[in-house]
């Protein structure tokens, strides 16, 4: 080894060190720049400035037109209500469930059951639920005619209903596993068992003891996921397209329709609508913040009142029943998808199809190659880039011991700001720059969502890894890089893989980012599935929804089994995921 090589190594190490120092800022830049720029480029047309299509001056006319649009107030209301009801219901049920089941066998059983449910993309879950609860859906078929007396589907509006109830149901069912897993991940930090035991020794029943002592400590830890749920519920496009109201649409879908209208002047209104959507989402978050304060106050007052509560078993029952229903609906949805995907002609109210066939699967297999390849390329690359960056940021935090947390909270911005509010601006920019939509742009757009979720999934494990491991390794003479490669990374293999599985699933479930940024040219499983939704052929929709759900499941399974395989002879590494 000559001095040249040594100095090269020094330079490389120095470069890596600087890269690591810069990683948090780089990550914030690539996450914030598109959002801020995109919102900025949406604000201008909203006020009439978009020279490319003749908007030169500033005006409020487009907002006036927006507010005069038929059905707008209802659209706004549905978006708003769904933004509040969905998280409220999901959170309440999750808390009640944990109060009832925390520390029991039911909890670990449920944890195993809901993890795969989390992997099902929103669109696929919405299709499944629609197939289950529609007037001609699986439930009605199974209950008819014996229980209901219907020989033809009842003429009731369930899916796509005016008030968005089925939309809220779909979102609640989908978010319960998400919040449940987030809560389960946070619980060990706050020593829930000790808290409950103390309260019980003071004469509180178990459920109430949990609610009064654990919730106040737990909630701050899952606040961010709850906010993400609120933002998603207020502005989702794909779920609303599938199961949401369509007379009128929810605000986000309506805005998308205006944006795609050949009458380009409607783009001004679409921009104004996108800003309104941003306003609706932020208002929902503010209102929620208000609810937090009220609940905290009420909770504290109740705790201080000394009441031991009599409704304990009722509350626990609601929690168990609610979460069990959500899980059953999700599973039922998957069953409905599977049945429909093989169904031949299936007359109502027959319980099962008259004939079975592989037609829809064969049909899909012919069209599958390119969307599948696109989906995989996008998801794999976005996941790899995201995990590398996330690890770099967390490692940087460890190494320079700079708690960036306050500013790192900003990296969740893409999850809070409605997608349409900034994707529009980005589209306008790419059209202006005459960039041909390509897969790289779509990957970048996916990163905006894959990165924050991967960070959310990994940061806790990374930060909580016992610092003595790295101190020990250092005293044994290992450099910081050796510590990273030989100690920290192997010890965190399982959480890293889980974070990758989360990122992978997030990428696969993206609709708007693929559809808008890819200008329809970059077809993915999700864009195909949603495009087919307008067709309404149940077998084919079912096949695509299942395909869309299978990939993330595989991801989660790999994340589960790879560590087991690698550490099969290492007892101390088990259960570290």
């Amino acid at each position, binding site marked *: 080894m000559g001095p040249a090589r040594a100095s090269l190594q020094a330079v490389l190490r120095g470069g890596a060190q600087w890269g690591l120092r810069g990683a948090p800022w780089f990550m914030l830049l690539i996450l914030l720049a598109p959002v801020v720029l995109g919102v900025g480029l949406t604000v201008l047309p909203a006020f009439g400035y978009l020279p490319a299509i003749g908007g030169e001056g500033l005006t409020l006319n487009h907002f006036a037109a927006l507010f005069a649009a038929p059905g707008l107030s209802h659209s706004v209301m549905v978006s708003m209500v769904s933004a509040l009801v969905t998280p409220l219901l999901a959170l309440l049920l999750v808390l009640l469930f944990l109060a009832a089941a925390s520390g029991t066998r039911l909890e670990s059983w449920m944890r195993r059951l809901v993890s795969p449910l989390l992997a099902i993309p929103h669109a696929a879950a919405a299709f499944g639920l629609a197939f289950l609860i529609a007037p001609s859906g699986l439930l009605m078929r199974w209950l008819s005619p014996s229980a209901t007396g219907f020989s033809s589907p009842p003429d009731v509006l369930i899916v796509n209903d005016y008030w968005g109830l089925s939309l809220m149901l779909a979102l609640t069912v989908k978010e319960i596993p998400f919040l449940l897993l987030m809560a389960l991940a946070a619980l060990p930090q706050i020593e829930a068992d000790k808290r409950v035991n103390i309260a019980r020794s003071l004469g509180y029943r178990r459920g109430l003891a949990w609610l009064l002592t654990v919730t106040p400590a737990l909630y701050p830890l899952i606040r961010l996921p709850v906010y993400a749920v609120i933002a998603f519920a207020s502005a989702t496009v794909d779920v609303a397209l599938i199961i949401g109201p369509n007379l009128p649409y929810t605000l986000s879908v309506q805005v998308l329709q205006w944006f795609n209208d050949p009458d380009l002047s409607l783009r001004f209104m679409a921009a104004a609508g996108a800003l309104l959507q941003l306003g609706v989402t932020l208002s929902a978050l503010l209102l929620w913040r208000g609810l937090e304060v009220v609940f905290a106050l009420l909770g504290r007052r109740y705790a201080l009142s000394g009441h031991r509560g009599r409704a304990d078993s009722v509350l626990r029952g609601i929690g168990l029943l609610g979460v069990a229903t959500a899980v059953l609906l999700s599973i039922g949805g998957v069953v409905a998808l599977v049945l429909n995907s093989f169904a031949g002609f299936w007359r109502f109210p027959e319980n099962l199809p008259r004939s079975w066939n592989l037609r829809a699967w064969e*049909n899909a297999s012919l069209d599958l190659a390119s969307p599948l390849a696109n989906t995989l390329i996008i998801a794999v690359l976005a996941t790899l880039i995201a995990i590398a960056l996330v690890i770099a940021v967390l490692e940087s935090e460890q190494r320079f011991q700079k708690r960036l947390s306050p500013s790192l909270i900003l990296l969740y911005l893409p999850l809070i700001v409605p997608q349409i509010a900034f994707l529009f601006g980005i589209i306008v920019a790419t059209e202006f720059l*005459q960039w041909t939509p390509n897969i790289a742009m779509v990957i970048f757009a996916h990163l905006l969502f894959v990165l924050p979720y991967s960070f959310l999934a990994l940061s806790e494990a990374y930060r909580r890894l016992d610092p003595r491991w790295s101190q020990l390794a250092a005293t044994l003479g290992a450099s910081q890089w050796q510590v990273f490669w030989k100690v920290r990374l192997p010890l965190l293999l399982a959480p890293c893989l889980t974070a990758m599985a989360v990122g992978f699933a997030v990428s696969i479930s993206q609709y708007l980012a693929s559809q808008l940024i890819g200008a329809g040219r970059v077809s993915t499983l999700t864009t195909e599935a949603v495009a*087919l939704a307008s*067709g*309404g*052929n149940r077998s084919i929709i079912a096949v695509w929804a299942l395909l869309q759900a299978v990939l993330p499941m595989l991801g989660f399974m790999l994340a589960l089994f790879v560590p087991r395989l690698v550490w099969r002879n290492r007892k101390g590494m088990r259960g570290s995921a």
Partner: protein
Amino acid sequence: MSRSLCLMLVGLFCLLPINVFSDSPDPGNWEQVVASARGQTVYFDAWAGDPQINRYIAWAAEQTQKRYGVEIVHVKLSDTAEAVSRILAEKLAGNTETGTVDLLWVNGENFATLKQNALLFGPWAEQLPNFALVDADKRPEMREDFTIAVEGLESPWTRSQLIYYFDSEILPSPPTNVHALLAWAQENPGQFTYPRPPVFLGSTFLKQVLLELVEDREPLYKPLVTEEFARITAPLWSYLDQLHPSLLRGGRSFPSSGTQMRRMMGDGEISLAISLSPAEASAGIAAGELPETVRSFVSDAGSIGNVSFLAVPFNARAKAGAMVFANFLLSAQAQLQAYRPEVMGSTTVLSMEQLSAQERAAFANVDVGSATLPPEALGKTLQEPHPDWVGALEREWVERYGAR
């Protein structure tokens, strides 16, 4: 001296884009078109809500790749308006050469928008070798799209006509015009619905009702006079006001496409449905989506019909490839394939007289299924109104029923 030099340079730069444009293929020189098409990738933007049509496009793409070395990528739209909006935006952004759309399935209002804004390449369609098979001289509807002259800017590829289909087991004698439809619906509430405008099929239904109700159809074939709109369309709205409470879901929700309506028919939610494809019922039976007792009919007042076209945007990159594909879709082989009910069940745009005896026989031998209306049963075709009316009707519909 230097000033004239400047002017010359400016002049040269002005000429440059023209040189670039001269790369556009000359549709008159077909051999050269085919030659320059080889190796191109054509982005074909087409509505993708019907899996059968998607499969057909995939088949045609495969054939074109094999024969001409042109790759066709089906960009799946849920609404053709998306593509029109994109092309317009590209033009306004000054993108004259690297458009994202090479070929577009289009007609009516969207074609009018494209033509009006000079967003189309051409004329080219009548130079296609297979255009002769259309026999446009005898069939003027091939040169007119919703009353707008096509002028060679788009090539016909399929035709459609509004038909009703019904389950003959449940509904032995269906209502055969809009008046009978209303009476029947009121006696049998919840048995009928139509796709929500501006979904194409839904808008077509509005026009059908309007054409059947108005006494004087003449104004509908002329550009819209705004002041006249309320008076002329009044019968339509009063008709719908009466019809809607008797529709499925009491008219509070409408299917989002014809395929979704077909599924409702298969589930027995409705017993009467509409379609733009005379072979819809047979195709549905063949696909196992409809019971075998489904049959079709058209309104005895005549039914609205139109031709779907393919257009090439002005800034398409693969114009030659797009033309080659359009020409293939006009071939007897491609049209025959589309004609088969198990494939797409589409009515051909070709004139049987222009085909060889063998090709004619091939068409005659296709078993269109007992649920398909033969051409002679399709009755009188009502021409599409001027495209102005479509947008106005859709807006009014949304205003009245789209958002209460």
